[in-house]
């Protein structure tokens, strides 16, 4: 049968931006599969009771994060010219979840989650009531400690930092009360340092280091009304925008290269 052939593996790079950054990982997967069906690409199906599309994705983004560099690998039963395949996908995708590039790869190559272990992030923070020193001190404190403890569904988890940081995170002041944190992380099998985990830890550290710092306006309003802010970062920062700018494959030599 057609589906038993090894076929072709098309790697597609796409962006997830603007409003669609609020889609959960599962919602993204469904949306992309539907785009592929609309594009009428000759996708391969798995065998078995409930056949589904043979497709794999790069690691999940935190909810609310944008990305300029996401990937999926889809198996095709027939060859479609790369440009043609990309155009058909683009014509059938929303602009905020949009394929940017496509390339055939060796069907036997590593899966995306295994290959793309290095992620680069640009995190915009705004907090009029904090000085750059507040944030830098808190960040240094975390880095010196070299681990982060966080609550994962009621369980306290501990993440060692050094091996998970490809580079030391850089904090830049963009404007009064506006900061940017540049972060490059390395995913490990024993757990990844998601940027939102770091930002939540940073917020808690700031609260400890500078207890007289005012809460952000939203937090004050919510506190008055007895409402809960789901994440620690929202007590301290007026806004947090996480953007994944690139994902890389790390060679044995330590060199890194992009997914396509």
């Amino acid at each position: 049968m057609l589906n038993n052939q090894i076929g072709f593996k098309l790697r597609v790079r796409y962006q997830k931006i603007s409003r669609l950054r609020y889609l959960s990982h599962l919602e993204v997967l469904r949306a992309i599969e539907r785009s592929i069906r609309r594009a009428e690409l000759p996708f391969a199906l798995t065998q078995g009771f409930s056949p589904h599309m043979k497709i794999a994705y790069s690691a999940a983004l935190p909810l609310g994060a944008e990305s300029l560099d996401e990937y999926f690998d889809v198996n095709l039963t027939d060859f479609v010219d790369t440009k043609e395949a990309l155009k058909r996908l683009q014509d059938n995708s929303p602009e905020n979840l949009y394929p940017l590039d496509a390339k055939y790869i060796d069907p036997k190559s590593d899966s995306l989650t295994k290959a793309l272990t290095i992620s680069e992030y640009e995190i915009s923070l705004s907090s009029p009531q904090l000085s750059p020193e507040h944030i830098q001190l808190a960040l240094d404190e975390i880095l010196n400690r070299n681990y982060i403890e966080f609550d994962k569904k009621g369980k306290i988890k501990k993440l060692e930092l050094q091996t998970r940081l490809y580079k030391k995170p850089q904090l830049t002041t963009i404007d009064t009360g506006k900061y940017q944190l540049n972060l490059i992380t390395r995913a490990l099998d024993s757990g990844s340092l998601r940027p939102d985990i770091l930002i939540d830890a940073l917020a808690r550290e700031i609260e400890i280091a500078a207890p007289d710092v005012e809460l952000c306006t939203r937090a004050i309003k919510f506190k008055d009304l007895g409402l809960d802010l789901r994440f620690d970062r929202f007590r301290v920062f007026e806004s947090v925008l996480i953007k994944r700018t690139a994902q890389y494959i790390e060679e044995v030599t330590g060199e890194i290269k992009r997914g396509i």
Partner: protein
Amino acid sequence: MSTNVFSQVETLLELVERPSRYINHEWGASALDPNADYRACMMYPDTYEVGQANQGLAILYSILNAQEGVSCERAYTPWIDMADCMRALDIPLYGLESGDALKDFDLIGIQYPHEMAVTNILESLDLAQIPLFSKERSLDDPLIIAGGPSVLNPEPIADFFDCVLIGESEEQIIKFVDAHRKALAEGLSREDMLFALSQVPGVYVPQFYAELPKEEQSRAIYAPIKEGVPEKVKRQIVTGFKNTDPLASHIVPYAATVHDRVAIEILRGCSRGCRFCQAGMAYRPVRERTADQIVSAVLEGLKKTGYDEVSLTSLSTTDHSQIEEILTRLNKRLAITGVRISLPSQRMDSFGVEMAALVSGSKKGGLTFAPEAGSQRLRNVINKNITEEDIEKSIEGAFKAGWRRIKLYFMIGLPSETDDDLRAIGELAQRAYEIARDNCEPSQRSAIQITCSAAIFVPKSHTPYQWFGQVHPDEIKRRIEVLKESMPQKGVRLNYHASDTSYLEAVLARGDRSLAQLIYEVWKRGARFDAWTEQAQEKLWFETAEELGFNLLELACKSYGYKDPLPWAHIDSLVLNNYLEMEDLRSKMSQITEDCTFGLCTYCGVCTRTNADIDLAGDRLVE
């Protein structure tokens, strides 16, 4: 000038569950006409996942957006986390497409899908910062209208709505919007505008009707208090159902909705005549689309949306005269695409099982049947026209075809039900288990799962059981014990809901206008999302009712005589009252009435009183 609130909403999206509920921009959502001078919004009073799947609103959304000068958006009730945040920050509910506050729209159409949605209607209006009661609204507010299955008894919600559209609204909504635009252009007063709207067929304007003095009531409690409005408001039937677009919605949601697939309504109406079923009375006559139309709509829908599943919807899909041809053709066209076809319900006979087998492929999940009652006597009473043999044959067929899981739906508290009828459910379950064992390999026997589900019967308006009082909860509790004892020791599981919700449902289904006060008060005290088991606050309902002097159990369990005035008698479902009475009498004599699409006319009145007629795509054959 309208206020755009989306930037404010956006600051909340990371704080709430499932933010994709609130962002719009789905594939296939309508681009709004920027030159539209009339802004409408169709609202479903539940979460996005429930409402987006609603076909009725999807149809009206498409129709309105196709009108020159009209734009139509969507809105849903924000989940409690979002609702609390929006209230805290004073952000009004908005149209999903534009992000503009609903209070600046011209028209808000709210679906009344089932009785338990009443508090969410108020919750949504309140979040939109629109006055809840019609009498508190002015020309500065949008016109608030209701439609949908439950408006057949509009009285409990009548005070909250300016107009209620009775029946199928495909054509009605166009006339209605035209009349509204004309009234706005002419600068009519609110009263004159409502009067103009009351002249559109099937439009009920509650404020022009009032309770008649007791001595003047005959069949109806409510009658016109304004000259020129219809004494009875007639349910509307779309002419030429066949010519309407079978693909109601092209929108592909990001959030997983309750029916996350292409839906094609293959036929409308059902005249099997089950005496408890409001839909079976209220969507007559039966009208089928042709096989050609259905097959091409399915293929077009899949291509446009990219879905991997399609549902052929209706009240009785396997009754379609060409269903076998449709499924066979679709199977052929959809082979090796991984697309699944789903049927919303299975007819309980061997044909039903054959059709289910046709679409299930090699995957056999569960199969659901609804015998409704355990004994043949009671099935005849409710006019569920299936025999013992049909039931046995379908179970046998299901297990022979490879299914190992079946679910059987029953109702308890049906008119004339005795303990023997309840025990018959247990006997039927036992027989089902034996048939299952006999029709699968011994090694497969451990996989057999038979579940019986029992729901409490709720009498509805415009059915032959509209006069019937619900069975008191104490008695229901006793009957559940009888049922439990009758269940086989082995191989069968029993689920039942003994919750008080079914009494609330009964009160609202047959209630009068005074209930608005109760609904308002219960909502004010925090009731919302009553249809969600974990949110339902039955206790609050009962306590509040007692304080306000309503005896809910008495209302739910009250029986009426044929001559008693009824709160919904001024709404004409087109089914003759005589027919309902006759059906109730036949029920009392355990006499069945045949489905008129298979046999002779049963004189329900729908076809004779309108220019509508049964419209089949082929012959329906009796097995």
